[in-house]
């Protein structure tokens, strides 16, 4: 028996990336922010940080990654293996 490997479908993703590129280019245009700088005190609170303790989140991502088939899109760049 031969096992066939499959390529993931990236059509929708490609369209999303093109849209993101357009958004990026639009950054050159002036735009009035709908949340003013003086309204962002809640967002600046430490409880709102996506990555409050980088040393801990990198370790946690590594613990999950070596025990799961999934990988990536965690926000941290890893290296090495430690997975035997």
């Amino acid at each position, binding site marked *: 028996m031969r096992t066939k490997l499959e390529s*993931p479908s990236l059509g929708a993703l490609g369209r999303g*990336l093109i849209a993101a590129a357009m958004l990026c280019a639009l950054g050159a245009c002036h735009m009035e922010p709908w949340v003013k700088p003086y309204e962002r005190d809640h967002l600046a609170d430490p409880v709102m940080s996506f990555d409050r303790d980088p040393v801990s989140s990198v*370790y946690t991502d590594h613990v999950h990654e070596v025990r799961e*088939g999934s990988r990536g899109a965690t926000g941290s760049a890893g290296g*090495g293996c430690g997975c*035997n």
Partner: protein
Amino acid sequence: MNIARIGILLLIVVAALVRSAVGGVLPEDRVDVLLHSFDGGGITIQGPSLLVRKQFAQKFSVSANYYIDKVQSASIDVITTASPYTEERKQWSVGLDYLHDRWMLNLGIIDSEEPDYSSKTFSFGISQDLFGDLTTVSLGYSLGNNEVRRRGDPTFKAPMQTQSYRLGISQILTKNLLMGFSYETISDEGFLNNPYRQVRYVDPSSPQGYSYEREVYPHTRTSDAASLRLRYYLPWRAAIYGEYRAYSDTWQIKGNTFEIGYTHPHKGWLFDGMLRLYDQPKGASFYSDLFPYSTSQNFMARHKELSQFTSQDIRLQASYDIIKGGWKFLDKGTLNIVYDHMLFDYQNFRDLRVTGMTPGTEPLYTFDADVVQVFVSFWF
């Protein structure tokens, strides 16, 4: 090169060319000293991690991390097909951030060494604030060159290369709601299997009814993962957050990750509780717990991480502000403890510690693990 990688390279070029109005912010100066411990499934892994980050010349920030894993393994794979072992992995990494106008460049190098595996990873990234700081777009690329070796066989050396392309978008949606989106495609080429792990196949001539032979993996793998996270500020100064990640790859593995949590400060304390669910409804197309006969497929794996399984992770975290109002050159300091309890339930990986049964009817394997992190952080 697939369309996703072309798209991300295009984005890097566009981001480098665009000029807008708002500057970014360099990461804070801080030092973290962490001790970690994993205990579960017959494996204990412990060690320290030290992370230091410092700004200089107003536009640069440099970081360095030193990390050690001390592994004692008597995992189910090891006790059924090999002998328990101990080993140590050491990892160094250094990074540099450069802030210019409203965009930031970062470079990083990671060097990891263990007795049978060496890895050197170079990474490059760029991020830019857009739309009056409401949006931050970040793009990244990593290249890892690895060498796989096998204990007891000094002639065995196999190369493996990993490339990663990352896109991140952080978005302020309202004055109380933040959103983060990440996409990453990773492409591997080279020797991708573990040099020790074996598959089992039906063998009527063996007393137990099966025998073992080495795994054989494809020499390429490309994966796509996308995650969406939200964080909402509650009226009593607390936050609720959630995340979803979808994953698929050319080995036909599918994975879904769900996470929900709550952060609550109280006086000098900060408490956090989180539930993470991982579902891998589809394992690798060439995975099997029991192959019908020897070399029955061109690719064969019996790696439980490539099987069909679910896992749950319950986390509790407490942080205490140990330096209120600063002390000498320190602005702030915290003492932190993080405890995770994890459960793994495999749906087509069997527990071969149970003997005397017809091959393929052994109970399904399950294990739980306790993970503890204790660390101190100082800002200066």
